[in-house]
């Protein structure tokens, strides 16, 4: 009887838990669902009241309007190219930096770490004017470089990888590799990189998402519609008197799809990376 009531209690508890979770899934999931719905609604009905909450049939009309309004393929290529290059370079340099801080002893290691940590306290928008002046000075205005190079070895990435590598790469393994004749760079590429896959996945996806969504940087540094990224190109459609709202929503959906794919592809590594971070500190 006791066993029965305790299993009933467990069942009730789980039901309540799942009910609460379902509420949160709805709260967080509905805006996404609604965005997909609006991408299939005719542009003139986007602001209709009561709103459409089920899919309609205008998705391809909206896509066609979008392609008429902006050079979508070029903007997509720019976004993808910048985000990919930023991600690859950030992973490479931040992992190197994190590896050095985590596994080597050298002069001023602590002050350098503290200095890097303190730069994270500066709100990014405060940097935008000196950043812009520097990019003009380097003659990088209008190129992809301002959106990739300055962030390649960023403080957040290095600190994240330092924390991760401190606990995930045993010193004994590095010593054994040295005895076997591996160079320090070999240790980085053949031991540190594979053992840090989860941390790299977290850093990679965060970099990709931040780079993909970097509106202000692209707005300020990339001057024309053919050189700019998707968020800026889509913003051009917003508030246009006869701008097609359906096209805007369809473009927003297409802009989000790569992020969803990236997240799905690296889902396992991200979860394990975050979990590892939570127990290893």
């Amino acid at each position, binding site marked *: 009887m006791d066993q029965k009531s305790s299993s009933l209690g467990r069942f009730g508890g789980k039901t309540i838990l799942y009910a609460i979770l379902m509420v949160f899934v709805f709260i967080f999931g509905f805006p996404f669902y609604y965005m997909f719905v609006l991408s299939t609604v005719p*542009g*003139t009905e986007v*602001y*209709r*009241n009561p709103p459409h909450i089920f899919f309609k049939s205008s998705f391809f009309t909206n896509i066609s309007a979008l392609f008429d309004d902006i050079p979508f393929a070029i903007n997509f290529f720019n976004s993808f190219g910048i985000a990919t290059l930023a991600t690859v370079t950030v992973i490479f340099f931040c992992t190197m930096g994190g590896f050095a801080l985590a596994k080597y002893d050298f002069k*001023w290691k602590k*002050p350098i770490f503290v200095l890097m940590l303190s730069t994270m306290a500066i709100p990014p928008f405060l940097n*935008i*004017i*000196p950043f*812009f*002046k*520097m990019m*003009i*000075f380097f003659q990088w*205005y209008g190129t992809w470089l301002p959106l990739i190079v300055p962030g390649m070895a960023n403080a957040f990435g290095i600190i994240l990888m330092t924390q991760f590598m401190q606990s995930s790469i045993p010193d004994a393994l590095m010593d054994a590799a040295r005895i076997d004749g591996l160079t320090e760079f070999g240790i980085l590429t053949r031991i540190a990189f594979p053992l840090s896959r989860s941390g790299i996945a977290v850093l990679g996806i965060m970099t990709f998402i931040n780079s993909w969504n970097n*509106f*202000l940087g692209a*707005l*300020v540094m990339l*001057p*024309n*519609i053919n050189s700019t990224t998707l968020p*800026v190109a889509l*913003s*051009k459609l*917003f*508030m*246009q*008197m*006869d*701008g097609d*709202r359906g096209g805007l929503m369809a473009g927003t959906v297409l802009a989000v799809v790569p992020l969803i794919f990236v997240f799905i592809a690296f889902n396992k590594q991200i979860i394990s990376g975050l979990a590892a971070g939570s127990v290893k500190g």
Partner: protein
Amino acid sequence: MKKLVFLLTVAVAAGLLFVGCSGKKEQTSAADMPVFDPEKEYVVSIGAYGDLEKAYKAVMDTEDFKSTFPNVTVEFQTADFGGHHSRLTTVLAAGEATNDIEALEVGYIAKFVEGGGLTNLAAAPFNGVEVGKDIVGFAMSNATTSDGSLVAMPVDIAPAVLFYRQSLVDEAGVSLENLESWDEFIEVGKELVADRDGDGEIDQFAIPNANEVAMTPLNGGKGGWFKDGKPLEPKEKFIEALTVVKEIREAGIDGDLGAWTGPWTQSFADGTVAATINGAWFGGALKTWIATDLSGDWRATRLPGNTLAALGGTYLSIPAEVPDEQKAVAWEVIKYLTTSSNAQLTTFETIDAFPALTTVFDDPIMNEPVEYFGGQKVRQLYADIAQEIPNAAVSEYDAAILSVFGNAITDVLVNDASVEESYQTALNSVLAIAD
């Protein structure tokens, strides 16, 4: 550790030197200024927002423009309203220029006057005041600083009017024409409030938000913040603005809808609001995308008590850091866009941006009935109001004071502060700024 401190000091000093080396460019004297050569090939870039690119491209496709500028190619950098002005703020604050011409919404002029970075178009060889003699007076004054500098040329204007839906007004058995005061507007507004579906909840309001009225007794927030050197004077004017806002909210005739939100946009098409106060440009927005199905139902009329204000308007400026040769061609393009009938009317026909040039007010198009407004001659109404709006020069404090007064309006509307208390708080803040 000492070495680290030394290195940091060197880095900071180098950074300061880098920033310090880029002082603001002095304006070249008229004699040394290159002259525009129609035979030479030029590329001019325009930083624009919203629909402006579309309008100016239509202008550039006309034979008149092509024959005037056969060797000029125009490129655009367009973004949404907020994005464009954020970019421009960054560029000008950095003392740089990335486009030869930058469009500004009137609300940003005071901000850029404060920050500097724009060419004074009143000076020779531009002589903008003389060039703009046929541009409506209030618009020229809004781009003129108290020391006489002209920081931009008006290209389109937005005289404020009261837009309303005839069907909802008829249903309520009232009229919004020729209202003599805001008090009368509030009384009529009460009749426009309704529970249409009978569920016990109000679902029809007179206007979307009380705060849209706030700036109209204050000339749309342009200039007029000082009298005889004293800020927020005459006091009655500012008290009136806050009182009207408070009374509208207390009368329950506004829907408390945030501007440019989904519910706000929907409210003009679904009957949630019967009227709204906005610049003339909003008529174009209603017609082309906000309430396309309501053709023939919307009307426009003067504001209660014939309050005169402008709510919006576009200006064209040349950043100070633009090379002189580019300034010469940029100025010729600006002159064309702001003072040629062809450009002004093409812009108007393309995006409904109301012309700033008074000579086109007599064009037959201005007297045509507009189908969307039930055959009303709204353009003539806009033109008449535009010529009555008082002049007001901008000052370096305008942007800050506008923000302070905006907080006072929020205090009255949201925090239920008294009008007198909000005025005093605003006055203290303004005095602190002006010190």
